[in-house]
Protein backbone atom coordinates (compact mmCIF):
# COMPACT_ATOMS: atom_id res chain seq x y z
CA UNK A 1 0.00 0.00 0.00
CA UNK A 2 2.78 2.37 0.99
CA UNK A 3 4.73 1.30 -2.09
CA UNK A 4 1.76 2.04 -4.35
CA UNK A 5 1.29 5.46 -2.74
CA UNK A 6 4.97 6.24 -3.22
CA UNK A 7 4.78 5.19 -6.87
CA UNK A 8 1.71 7.33 -7.55
CA UNK A 9 3.42 10.26 -5.86
CA UNK A 10 6.41 9.78 -8.12
CA UNK A 11 4.19 9.68 -11.22
CA UNK A 12 2.39 12.83 -10.08
CA UNK A 13 5.74 14.53 -9.59
CA UNK A 14 6.84 13.63 -13.12
CA UNK A 15 3.52 14.83 -14.54
CA UNK A 16 3.88 18.15 -12.72
CA UNK A 17 7.38 18.53 -14.06
CA UNK A 18 6.21 17.87 -17.62
CA UNK A 19 3.32 20.30 -17.23
CA UNK A 20 5.64 22.97 -15.89
CA UNK A 21 8.02 22.42 -18.81
CA UNK A 22 5.15 22.77 -21.28
CA UNK A 23 4.02 25.98 -19.56
CA UNK A 24 7.57 27.36 -19.68
CA UNK A 25 7.86 26.48 -23.34
CA UNK A 26 4.55 28.15 -24.17
CA UNK A 27 5.54 31.24 -22.20
CA UNK A 28 8.87 31.43 -24.05
CA UNK A 29 7.06 31.31 -27.37
CA UNK A 30 4.65 34.11 -26.51
CA UNK A 31 5.62 37.46 -27.95
CA UNK A 32 6.57 40.13 -25.44
CA UNK A 33 6.18 43.85 -25.96
CA UNK A 34 8.05 46.34 -23.79
CA UNK A 35 7.94 50.09 -23.71
CA UNK A 36 10.62 52.03 -21.86
CA UNK A 37 10.54 55.55 -20.56
CA UNK A 38 13.44 57.73 -21.56
CA UNK A 39 14.63 57.37 -17.96
CA UNK A 40 14.77 53.61 -18.44
CA UNK A 41 11.76 52.23 -16.54
CA UNK A 42 10.20 49.34 -18.45
CA UNK A 43 6.52 48.64 -19.00
CA UNK A 44 5.38 45.24 -20.22
CA UNK A 45 2.42 45.72 -22.56
CA UNK A 46 -0.25 43.13 -21.78
CA UNK A 47 -1.73 41.19 -24.71
CA UNK A 48 -5.13 42.68 -23.86
CA UNK A 49 -3.80 46.25 -23.78
CA UNK A 50 -4.45 48.79 -26.51
CA UNK A 51 -1.61 48.96 -28.96
CA UNK A 52 -0.30 45.46 -28.30
CA UNK A 53 -1.69 43.96 -31.50
CA UNK A 54 -0.61 46.93 -33.60
CA UNK A 55 2.94 46.86 -32.24
CA UNK A 56 3.13 43.15 -32.83
CA UNK A 57 1.85 43.55 -36.37
CA UNK A 58 4.43 46.22 -37.19
CA UNK A 59 7.18 44.07 -35.68
CA UNK A 60 6.03 41.06 -37.69
CA UNK A 61 6.16 43.09 -40.88
CA UNK A 62 9.66 44.22 -40.00
CA UNK A 63 10.77 40.67 -39.26
CA UNK A 64 9.34 39.60 -42.59
CA UNK A 65 11.27 42.35 -44.36
CA UNK A 66 14.42 41.32 -42.54
CA UNK A 67 14.35 37.95 -44.26
CA UNK A 68 14.49 34.38 -43.09
CA UNK A 69 15.79 33.99 -39.55
CA UNK A 70 18.16 31.20 -40.41
CA UNK A 71 19.75 32.78 -43.43
CA UNK A 72 23.39 33.80 -43.52
CA UNK A 73 23.65 37.16 -41.81
CA UNK A 74 26.51 38.45 -43.94
CA UNK A 75 27.55 40.32 -45.95
CA UNK A 76 26.30 43.38 -44.18
CA UNK A 77 25.61 46.14 -46.64
CA UNK A 78 23.66 49.30 -47.25
CA UNK A 79 21.43 50.12 -50.19
CA UNK A 80 23.96 52.78 -51.17
CA UNK A 81 26.83 50.31 -51.08
CA UNK A 82 24.92 47.91 -53.27
CA UNK A 83 24.34 50.63 -55.86
CA UNK A 84 28.05 51.18 -56.32
CA UNK A 85 30.99 53.14 -54.97
CA UNK A 86 29.80 56.51 -56.21
CA UNK A 87 29.43 58.10 -52.80
CA UNK A 88 32.40 60.16 -51.85
CA UNK A 89 30.97 62.10 -48.92
CA UNK A 90 31.80 59.48 -46.33
CA UNK A 91 35.13 59.77 -44.60
CA UNK A 92 37.28 56.68 -44.40
CA UNK A 93 37.14 55.15 -40.94
Amino acid at each position, binding site marked *: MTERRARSGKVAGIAEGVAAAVRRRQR*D*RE*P*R*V*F*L*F*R*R*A*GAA*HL*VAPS*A*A*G*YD*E*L*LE*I*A*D*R*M*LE*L*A*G*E*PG*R*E*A*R*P*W*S*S*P*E*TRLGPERS*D*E*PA*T
Partner: protein
Amino acid sequence: MGIVTRVSAASALTPQVAVERLGEQSADVRAAALLDEGGNRVASANADGADADGIAELAAELFTVADAAGSRVGLDGVGRVEVARPEGGVFGVRARDPAGRSWTLVAVTAGGALSSLVFYDMGMTIRALGASA
Protein backbone atom coordinates in the same frame (compact mmCIF):
# COMPACT_ATOMS: atom_id res chain seq x y z
CA MET B 1 25.89 39.06 -29.33
CA GLY B 2 26.93 42.64 -29.31
CA ILE B 3 30.46 43.73 -28.98
CA VAL B 4 31.24 46.63 -26.70
CA THR B 5 32.54 49.51 -28.74
CA ARG B 6 34.46 52.48 -27.47
CA VAL B 7 33.49 55.65 -29.24
CA SER B 8 35.89 58.47 -28.63
CA ALA B 9 35.05 62.11 -28.97
CA ALA B 10 37.32 62.20 -31.99
CA SER B 11 35.25 59.57 -33.87
CA ALA B 12 33.62 61.04 -36.93
CA LEU B 13 30.80 58.87 -38.18
CA THR B 14 28.25 59.79 -40.76
CA PRO B 15 24.77 58.30 -40.19
CA GLN B 16 25.37 55.66 -42.87
CA VAL B 17 28.72 54.60 -41.46
CA ALA B 18 27.31 54.49 -37.92
CA VAL B 19 24.42 52.25 -38.95
CA GLU B 20 26.66 49.93 -40.94
CA ARG B 21 29.01 49.70 -37.99
CA LEU B 22 26.10 48.69 -35.75
CA GLY B 23 25.38 45.80 -38.08
CA GLU B 24 28.99 44.75 -38.34
CA GLN B 25 29.56 44.75 -34.62
CA SER B 26 26.28 43.27 -33.42
CA ALA B 27 26.05 39.77 -34.81
CA ASP B 28 22.36 39.50 -33.98
CA VAL B 29 21.31 42.60 -35.89
CA ARG B 30 19.91 41.70 -39.32
CA ALA B 31 18.77 45.13 -40.44
CA ALA B 32 18.79 48.66 -39.09
CA ALA B 33 17.39 52.00 -40.08
CA LEU B 34 18.00 55.51 -38.81
CA LEU B 35 15.50 58.36 -39.02
CA ASP B 36 16.08 62.02 -38.27
CA GLU B 37 13.87 64.24 -36.14
CA GLY B 38 11.46 64.78 -39.01
CA GLY B 39 11.01 61.04 -39.52
CA ASN B 40 13.06 60.96 -42.71
CA ARG B 41 15.28 57.98 -43.39
CA VAL B 42 18.88 59.10 -43.30
CA ALA B 43 20.57 55.69 -43.26
CA SER B 44 19.79 52.02 -43.42
CA ALA B 45 21.75 48.84 -43.76
CA ASN B 46 21.04 45.17 -43.68
CA ALA B 47 22.30 41.67 -43.88
CA ASP B 48 21.98 40.17 -47.32
CA GLY B 49 18.36 39.82 -48.35
CA ALA B 50 16.75 42.17 -45.86
CA ASP B 51 14.66 45.13 -46.98
CA ALA B 52 16.09 47.92 -44.84
CA ASP B 53 14.17 50.59 -46.72
CA GLY B 54 10.88 48.90 -45.90
CA ILE B 55 11.95 48.63 -42.28
CA ALA B 56 12.76 52.35 -42.25
CA GLU B 57 9.23 53.11 -43.42
CA LEU B 58 7.81 51.12 -40.52
CA ALA B 59 10.13 52.64 -37.92
CA ALA B 60 8.16 55.87 -37.56
CA GLU B 61 4.92 53.91 -37.37
CA LEU B 62 6.37 51.79 -34.56
CA PHE B 63 6.98 54.82 -32.37
CA THR B 64 3.66 56.44 -33.26
CA VAL B 65 1.83 53.37 -31.99
CA ALA B 66 4.20 53.02 -29.02
CA ASP B 67 3.55 56.63 -27.99
CA ALA B 68 -0.19 56.10 -28.15
CA ALA B 69 0.03 52.85 -26.18
CA GLY B 70 2.38 54.44 -23.66
CA SER B 71 0.23 57.48 -23.03
CA ARG B 72 -2.73 55.24 -22.21
CA VAL B 73 -0.79 53.80 -19.28
CA GLY B 74 0.75 57.08 -18.19
CA LEU B 75 4.04 56.41 -19.95
CA ASP B 76 4.71 59.69 -21.67
CA GLY B 77 7.84 59.93 -23.72
CA VAL B 78 8.60 56.40 -24.84
CA GLY B 79 12.33 56.26 -25.42
CA ARG B 80 12.72 52.60 -26.30
CA VAL B 81 10.54 49.84 -27.68
CA GLU B 82 11.21 46.11 -27.75
CA VAL B 83 9.08 43.46 -29.39
CA ALA B 84 10.49 40.00 -28.79
CA ARG B 85 9.42 36.91 -30.67
CA PRO B 86 11.18 33.55 -30.63
CA GLU B 87 12.16 33.97 -34.28
CA GLY B 88 13.42 37.51 -33.94
CA GLY B 89 13.16 40.85 -32.24
CA VAL B 90 12.49 44.47 -33.10
CA PHE B 91 14.22 47.18 -31.11
CA GLY B 92 13.64 50.89 -31.35
CA VAL B 93 15.55 53.68 -29.67
CA ARG B 94 14.66 57.35 -29.79
CA ALA B 95 17.32 59.57 -28.29
CA ARG B 96 19.41 62.66 -28.72
CA ASP B 97 23.05 62.55 -29.65
CA PRO B 98 25.61 64.62 -27.71
CA ALA B 99 25.09 67.44 -30.21
CA GLY B 100 21.40 67.60 -29.25
CA ARG B 101 19.94 66.15 -32.43
CA SER B 102 17.09 63.68 -32.06
CA TRP B 103 17.29 60.32 -33.82
CA THR B 104 15.14 57.22 -34.15
CA LEU B 105 17.10 54.04 -34.63
CA VAL B 106 15.37 50.73 -35.29
CA ALA B 107 17.04 47.33 -35.48
CA VAL B 108 15.68 43.91 -36.38
CA THR B 109 17.55 41.06 -34.75
CA ALA B 110 17.69 37.30 -34.78
CA GLY B 111 15.76 35.45 -32.10
CA GLY B 112 17.23 35.26 -28.63
CA ALA B 113 19.23 38.49 -28.88
CA LEU B 114 20.07 39.96 -25.50
CA SER B 115 18.07 43.14 -25.31
CA SER B 116 20.49 44.91 -22.98
CA LEU B 117 23.35 44.41 -25.42
CA VAL B 118 21.30 45.41 -28.45
CA PHE B 119 20.09 48.56 -26.69
CA TYR B 120 23.64 49.32 -25.57
CA ASP B 121 25.00 49.02 -29.11
CA MET B 122 22.15 51.14 -30.46
CA GLY B 123 22.76 53.80 -27.82
CA MET B 124 26.45 53.88 -28.73
CA THR B 125 25.52 54.25 -32.38
CA ILE B 126 23.48 57.36 -31.61
CA ARG B 127 26.26 58.72 -29.44
CA ALA B 128 28.70 58.24 -32.29
CA LEU B 129 26.49 60.41 -34.49
CA GLY B 130 26.96 63.31 -32.11
CA ALA B 131 30.70 62.88 -32.22
CA SER B 132 30.63 63.72 -35.90
CA ALA B 133 28.82 67.02 -35.37
